[in-house]
């Protein structure tokens, strides 16, 4: 059975898909469960862990492969001078797909997949329509207030640069979905500390308290990935399904129901009817996932 799956994987999947069911027991328009937990890492300014699939003992056939995608994102805030392009600071996203998450990756420079995903996330997160960085000014005070009043002014105006690192823990398909959800959940939970400057010009972050700053999220973005296998469209594909597919489609929707972006790879075409269906599914999924993200505040 398992050898059959390995050797004739496309035949194996076709036998299931002919009955509109997938090897893991889902129907074609059935997304896996999304579970989010936030602020797991105290060493960062905000963090989130996202797991898609296998959140409750899911039925598995043959045991091969899939176990759910998991991704963690943590944000470290650093201080730097503002530039013309970044008067309010910036969020810098990097995606690390280390060899731990799949046998496809090896140590060394990041794969193109990781770089492309990182670029895509950066674009989404830097768009002024979703996030507002305006309140993100650094609050600094002198340690042991210096008598000289002119000294007070010498504190330079600084802004926050937030390094968001997305680590992929287990790559079982729809990694972009997990990454974007993790990124927004982490941003939502970022706390920016007050800074104190000592005599030696050391900048020291004070413990987080009620006055610590937050980032204003205007709209949550929720992505949904679809895989196109022959004529069929599968929502939230697993790694195995992604490999067999002739194309992937990612639809990002906003909490108010509007469409943000569509990203499609692969050469196969998709007719109108199917695309509309996909957008409907994406909008539905957006609601459930957004609820999950907001509950983690």
């Amino acid at each position, binding site marked *: 059975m398992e*050898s059959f799956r390995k*050797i004739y994987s496309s035949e194996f999947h076709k036998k299931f898909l002919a009955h509109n069911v997938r090897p893991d027991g889902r*129907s074609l328009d059935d997304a896996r469960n999304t579970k989010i937990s936030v602020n797991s890492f105290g060493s960062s300014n905000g963090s989130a862990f996202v797991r898609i699939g296998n959140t409750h003992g899911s039925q598995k056939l043959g045991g091969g492969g899939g176990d759910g995608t998991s991704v963690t994102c943590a944000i470290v805030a650093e201080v730097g001078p503002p530039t013309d392009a970044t008067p309010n600071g910036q969020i810098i996203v990097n995606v690390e797909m280390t060899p731990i998450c799949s046998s496809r990756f090896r140590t060394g420079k990041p794969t193109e997949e990781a770089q492309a995903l990182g670029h895509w996330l950066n674009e989404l997160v830097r768009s002024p329509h979703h996030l507002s960085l305006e309140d993100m000014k650094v609050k600094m005070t002198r340690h042991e207030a210096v008598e000289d009043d002119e000294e007070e002014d010498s504190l330079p105006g600084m802004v926050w640069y937030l390094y968001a690192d997305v680590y992929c823990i287990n790559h079982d398909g729809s990694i972009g979905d997990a990454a974007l959800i993790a990124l927004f959940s982490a941003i939502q939970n970022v706390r920016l500390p007050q800074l104190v400057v000592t005599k030696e010009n050391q900048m020291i972050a004070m413990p987080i308290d009620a006055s610590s700053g937050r980032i204003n999220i205007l709209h949550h973005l929720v992505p949904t990935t679809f895989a196109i296998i022959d004529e069929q469209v599968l929502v939230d594909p697993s790694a195995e399904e992604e490999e067999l597919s002739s194309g992937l489609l990612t639809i990002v929707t906003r909490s108010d129901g509007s469409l943000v972006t569509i990203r499609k790879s692969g050469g196969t075409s998709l007719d109108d009817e199917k695309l509309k269906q996909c957008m409907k599914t994406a909008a539905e999924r957006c609601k459930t996932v957004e609820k999950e993200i907001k509950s983690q505040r």
Partner: protein
Amino acid sequence: MQNGNQSLVCPGERLGHTDTFESGEGTYILGNYVHASVIGAREETAGKDGGKTLLSVKKEKEPSIVPDIKSIVTARVTRVNPRFVNVSILCVGDRVLREPFAGMIRQQDVRATEIDKVEIYKCFRPGDIVLAEVISLGDSRSYFLSTAKNELGVIFAKSVAGATMVPTSWESMMCPKTKTKEFRKVAKGASLSSSINVNCTTVTLLQTKTDLLNTTQCLRR
């Protein structure tokens, strides 16, 4: 786990004295004792003719496995040239490898008779699925495999037209679409075993499918 905690052992655990026990799969001997080398359930098999009891540890999940001499492997042909074919080994026995190992079937190992007359192009094509036996650990790159037995050889191949071919003799297969014959070193009983395999699978699949649909419906309610 199902055997209860009593019989679950961890690597390094001392299982018994070598006077009374013999070391089986998943165990090793250190000093005078048999120790477990994997996590799993302890199993005792009575020895033949009143010999020592065989102690083995049955692993909880599919163990890690590498091809070994004499094991029968399933492999996909990746490259063909006049002297040998390169394959990637996918399964060892009935166990699936997580990642493929490279193997090689040399010209002299294709069949048992008329070794020097073997024409590789008339035996394998890239993409074929082959059943073969490991004859040596080979060189630094690949394992050396052999198909020099009746029951070894190509078990699954697609024709030029893209249809799954049916064996017609031990050295040819026919395309059901175009009715053209193509040469292959066919494994004896390949037709039988693979079709049975597929039939069995379909049956199980259909059963599981109904099971699954029922469960999903239950869950939805």
